[in-house]
């Protein structure tokens, strides 16, 4: 089970993961925070959210569109976006839309084939939590997230881009 790393203000650190992953087959535990598959969330999410006793997250696979969560987002604590392979780049779009279009301010967690090489892109698209599958440590992720002194295009992060720097 990969450990969770959270990133805030360009600094990555280990984090305790309070959430339990619930796949389509699993029973939902009686208590505690859970991350549900989309199917489970659609079936049982409402009841769990209404009980108000625990935090609920949703795991979105790369072929699922985050728009389906639009209505529930304010009540969702974590959106876990899956990378079935690191080459599958759909989650980058999902993350940007969550942050920029739906103004989601909960946690966006990268799960699956999550490698340090891609973390810089993930951070720019709005991910702030990672379950690295390559054993990357917080030190490595901090470095990966800050490797480039400049970026050219606006994304979900608040970084000043080249044109802002040039305007100074």
């Amino acid at each position, binding site marked *: 089970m990969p450990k969770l790393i959270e990133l805030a203000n360009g600094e990555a650190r280990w984090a305790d993961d309070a959430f339990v992953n619930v796949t389509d087959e699993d029973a939902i535990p009686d208590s505690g925070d859970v991350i549900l598959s989309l199917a489970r969330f659609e079936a049982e999410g409402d009841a769990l959210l209404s009980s108000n006793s625990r935090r609920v997250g949703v795991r979105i696979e790369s072929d699922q569109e985050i728009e389906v969560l639009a209505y529930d987002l304010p009540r969702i604590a974590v959106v876990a976006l899956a990378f079935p392979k690191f080459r599958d780049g759909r989650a*980058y779009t999902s993350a940007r839309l969550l942050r920029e279009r739906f103004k989601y301010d909960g946690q966006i967690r990268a799960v699956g084939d999550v490698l340090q090489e891609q973390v810089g892109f993930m951070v720019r698209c709005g991910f702030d939590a990672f379950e690295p599958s390559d054993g990357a440590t917080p030190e490595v992720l901090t470095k990966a997230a800050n490797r480039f002194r*400049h970026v*050219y*295009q606006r*994304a979900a992060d608040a970084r000043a881009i*080249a044109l802002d720097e*040039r*305007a100074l």
Partner: protein
Amino acid sequence: MYQYDLIDKEFLADRSAEFRGQVARRLSGELTEDQFKPLRLMNGLYLQLHAYMLRVAIPYGSLNPTQARRLAEIARDYDKGYGHFTTRQNIQFNWIKLKDAPEILDKLAEVDLHAIQTSGNCIRNTTSDPYAGATAEEIDDPRVWAEVIRQWSTLHPEFSYLPRKFKIAITASAKDRTAAKVHDIGLLMRQGRDGQLGFEVIVGGGQGRTPYVGPTIKQFLPTDRLLSYLEAVLRVYNRHGRRDNIYKARIKILVAALGAEEFARQVEEEWEKIDAERADLPAAEYARIRAAFATTTFETLPARSDAFEIAKAKDSAFARFVRNNVRAHKQPGYAIVEVSLKAADQTPGDASAHQLEVVADLAERYGQNDLRVTHVQNLVLPHIKQDDLPTVFAVLEAAGLATPNIDLISDIIACPGLDYCALANARAIPIAQDIARQFADPDRAENVGELKIKISGCINACGHHHVAHIGILGVDKKGEEFYQLSLGGSGAEDASIGKILGPALPADKVATAVDQLVGAYLNTRADGERFLDTYRRVGLEPFKEAVYAQAD
């Protein structure tokens, strides 16, 4: 050309440092080849048949002399003394050692060159008009917009892991020298009735196994909305392009599956949701980029140069060079000079270190420090004074760079083929050389006129055979190299996909078949008709007969 500032330079330095670390981790075994592959590919490093190949981007085909000299140095120090210009305005070095790659990238970065996104499933180097800033045909300088795209697409966080590679071409002339209609996105600059500039946007053209001339999905996109619209196109593609089959993953397959109209609708829908304030650049940034290009200053010269006219009258070889390799410039007294990399015994697109230096010197001395690369694998000196043409010709000729064959039958595009490439089924280079020899007589070649032959060593079509007047595709028949001919393709403004002529031919029959095709054309052509025009008028049959009748 565009001047890099400190930000651009620091960016390249950071990129180079990152790659150095990745190579070290690969060499130590920390990264598996599978994990390393996409990283090296995003830095232009392929593993080919014999060695690593490094593909260096020449952004929109624009080079300065310092950069050309650095490419020469790399060819000499790390390769076998030459480089190969590709059909997408890049240069490839075919004999690179992995351990040298970081040092090469450092040396490139010193002169503002890089290999970023010259491979991988990301947005590649943007193709643009090699005559930009020099031709009177253009309604704006397309390099400004190509540079806007370069910056936007460089390490784009959302679009670096697309379903497949993604290529954009941009032109602002009616005559298309970029093959825009067979790119993933082709941007054709248009002028609205009110004088406003915009782009006709073509999406889903392509070659490879399933060639398409791309459909227009937007008739007029105002230039200042370019980036938000590109974002919308890429986002629709990133989400919905196929990822289950590498051969069906290009955007052309998505556009064809949805239909151009539905695809366009989805893009519009996404575009309306994008915050233009954030996605599009402010006017000041366009102006800054435009100003960063304003480095050419033309003298006021008479339209007619006496030195030039006298040399033409005196020297028939020079006159021939002028007829075929020199084009009209927007500024009176100047000319655009095409430098052919298609000498008879040369590998199409190859340039030696010495040749690169010769062209660099000419650009510096006579050509406003400007040098271009064409997608036809030639070089261009875009700003030469007519007075200097005789000297420039003499220097080029001495270096084997004055072959007077631009757009003629021996100006052949060929992929590296089985001589270098791991994907190829057949060789392409020797076929090109056979044909060039067959038509070595320059009078005959000129009489034949514009004829675009393009050769691919496999179905991936890197040699653009689908859009050739005569296309040649290498196929493997029970271990033997055969070649399938097709006719009537064009990658220009009148883009079309060629039709297969008939059964594939063995290697030693290809040049003869081309000769027979040319014979049929010469017998049939009406006044002023190019090979392509005659083919379009009379169809495949007379050509088929010319090649296959005797064989029966």
